[in-house]
């Protein structure tokens, strides 16, 4: 009995010192993403490495104390993501969470961060609802969203004459949001949506869906899926000769890692929207080559976004002189984002980080001159035009004007 009482006392002492230590300690950053499933290449350990680089480049310290980082794999499961982040906030004293692919996980964690009053900066997750009806004073959306993708790719393809669409959509929050946002642009531009099919997540065989899309005779087959799902869809579309018969594929969300995996022979000619490309200018190349040294792959837009968002967060902590969420969030909104990733970016009141987006086309094998030379930029879409205007926002935090 005495033993157990002493043991209990010891545990309390340990717990107390642990939390006391953390509360007085430096900033602690959590990076959560998919490290084992279909989004592991486009975010995953590459995102964790980008976070590590951001902390190193910042000098490893903020407010005179070392910056700590932990990371976790949510396996694309919203429940696992919620459990991990709750534990991070309650036990691990994490101050801010970054990256977070998978729109379902992203919306679930938004609510947890809102209650805990902790900062959440999403780079990989896509749904535009994050800064729309689900917006939070503690949530920031960094790299892109479904609205910007729809606006970039959807609008341009309709303008080029692709006025009838058929969607192949992954059946969860991300696919639904991307299909909805794209369909809105298609309809607004006078186009028609002929049909849509929802496939389970993840999925391997897309032939049945592709044949139905083909039978619809739509000019554009919109692919509202990502990672291995979109890779397999494009690959099988080539096998079934879909594009040779005059229909066009619109990869609404594609990453450099997907193109690398598909190869230019299969991916050539696809028009896509991206928030970043490694080969834009000297600054992006300098960062990307350092990243390449560590990961043996060029950074995707969301991995670059993780670096940029963590750097901005640390600058804001420095400027605010505290790691308290509200003052830091105020600083993050106030300070412009100026780095290799974004020029004069701005975090809006709904949490949207507004920066230039790029409309790009995948090069042909002949056009590609060196490794990872995949995209030619067709057009720079200025930030205010690329993202949903505040006037159309469903976010309760936005004062209607």
């Amino acid at each position, binding site marked *: 009995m005495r033993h157990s009482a002493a043991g209990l006392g010891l545990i309390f002492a340990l717990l107390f010192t642990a939390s006391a230590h953390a509360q007085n300690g430096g900033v602690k950053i959590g990076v959560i993403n998919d490290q*084992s499933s279909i989004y592991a290449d486009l975010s995953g350990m590459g995102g964790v490495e980008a976070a590590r680089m951001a902390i190193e480049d910042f000098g490893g310290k903020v407010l005179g104390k070392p910056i700590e980082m932990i990371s976790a794999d949510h396996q694309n499961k919203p429940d696992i993501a919620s459990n991990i982040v709750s534990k991070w906030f309650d036990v691990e004293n994490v101050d801010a969470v970054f990256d977070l692919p998978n729109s379902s996980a992203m919306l679930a964690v938004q609510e947890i961060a809102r209650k805990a009053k902790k900062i959440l900066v999403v780079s990989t997750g896509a749904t535009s609802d994050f800064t729309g009806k689900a917006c939070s004073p503690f949530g920031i959306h960094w790299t892109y969203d479904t609205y910007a993708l729809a606006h970039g790719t959807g609008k341009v393809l309709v303008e080029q004459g692709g006025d009838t669409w058929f969607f192949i959509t992954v059946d969860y929050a991300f696919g639904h949001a991307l299909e909805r946002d794209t369909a809105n642009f298609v309809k607004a531009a006078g186009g028609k949506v002929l049909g849509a099919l929802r*496939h389970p997540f993840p999925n391997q065989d897309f032939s049945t869906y592709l*044949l139905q899309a083909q039978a619809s005779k739509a000019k554009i087959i919109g692919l509202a899926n990502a990672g291995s799902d979109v*890779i*397999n869809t494009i690959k099988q579309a080539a096998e079934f000769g879909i594009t040779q018969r005059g229909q066009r594929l619109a990869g609404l969300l594609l990453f450099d890692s997907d193109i690398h995996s598909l190869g230019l*022979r299969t991916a050539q000619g696809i028009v896509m929207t991206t928030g970043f490309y490694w080969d834009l200018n000297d600054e992006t190349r300098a960062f990307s080559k350092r990243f390449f040294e560590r990961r043996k792959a060029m950074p995707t837009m969301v991995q670059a976004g993780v670096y940029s968002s963590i750097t901005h967060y640390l600058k804001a902590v420095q400027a605010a002189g505290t790691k308290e969420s509200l003052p830091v969030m105020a600083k993050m909104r106030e300070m412009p984002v100026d780095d290799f990733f974004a020029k004069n970016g701005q975090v809006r009141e709904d949490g949207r980080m507004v920066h230039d987006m790029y409309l790009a086309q995948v090069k042909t094998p002949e056009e590609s001159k060196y490794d990872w030379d995949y995209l030619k930029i067709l057009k720079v879409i200025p930030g205010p035009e690329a993202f949903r205007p505040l006037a159309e926002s469903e976010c309760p935090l936005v004062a209607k004007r």
Partner: protein
Amino acid sequence: MFEIFGIPSQALFSLLLLGAINGAFYAMMSLGLALIFGILNIINFTHGAQYMMGAFAAWMLLNYAGFSYWSALVIAPVAVALTGLVLERLFLRHLYHLDHLYGFLLTFGVSLLIEGAFRQKYGVSGQPFQIPEQLTGGVNLGFMFLPHYRTWVIGASLTICLATWFVIERTPLGAYLRAANENPTLVRAFGINVPRIVTLTYMGGVALAAFAGVLAAPIFQVSSIMGANIIPIIFAVVVIGGLGSIMGSIITGFVLGLFEAFTRLVWPEASNVVIFVVMVAILLLRPQGLFGMR
């Protein structure tokens, strides 16, 4: 165009064909599993990883060693079967007399190790694998465009499945196998090397998985997660067909492929659960499986 059950005939025919193609993979995979379970009494959870290794072995042979697809189709299964030999000799043979759970846990652990190693090295997006020159293009059937490669997959898989069934059920070698399974001591008394037969059976089952992997490589990306994606379905197929029944797993594989394709047409969101719904129904109504004895 006419309609059947309110579905345009065009859609129905094409989904039957596509279902048969997926069914071909299910049949080959579940056949290997049934074979291994029938003779070794091991639930081989490494089967998905071995399927993935088959695809990767083919990819490596093509990219690093300059082999053709056709030679890879032979070499890759043999190479993966050799890793099966090591696994069986080192670990599995110690587990035959124990509860199924031990074999299941061991093979599950091994598959996690293998898949983790491939993920570490090659990521998850997959490696591109082109359809062999001779099988590019396709034929217009009127109701759909059928790529030559898919025709080849059905043909190759049916041939392999039936050949396996023939060997097990209709040849002296198969008779030894079945006898060794029934009563190993007696078969040994006739001077037959039972442990060797068992090892060869395991290698055969593994080679079937690897062969399916090579066939799959040009259709799906060659990726570290391709095995993890297919293995739950394969287990459901085996449970539905009845563990240990050779013809049962072949037929069930093809039928469930069709069933899944049909769901893709009428209720696409449910296509990944429909096989498990069937599994639950079968377990409730006929626990030994459609073709199971006992």
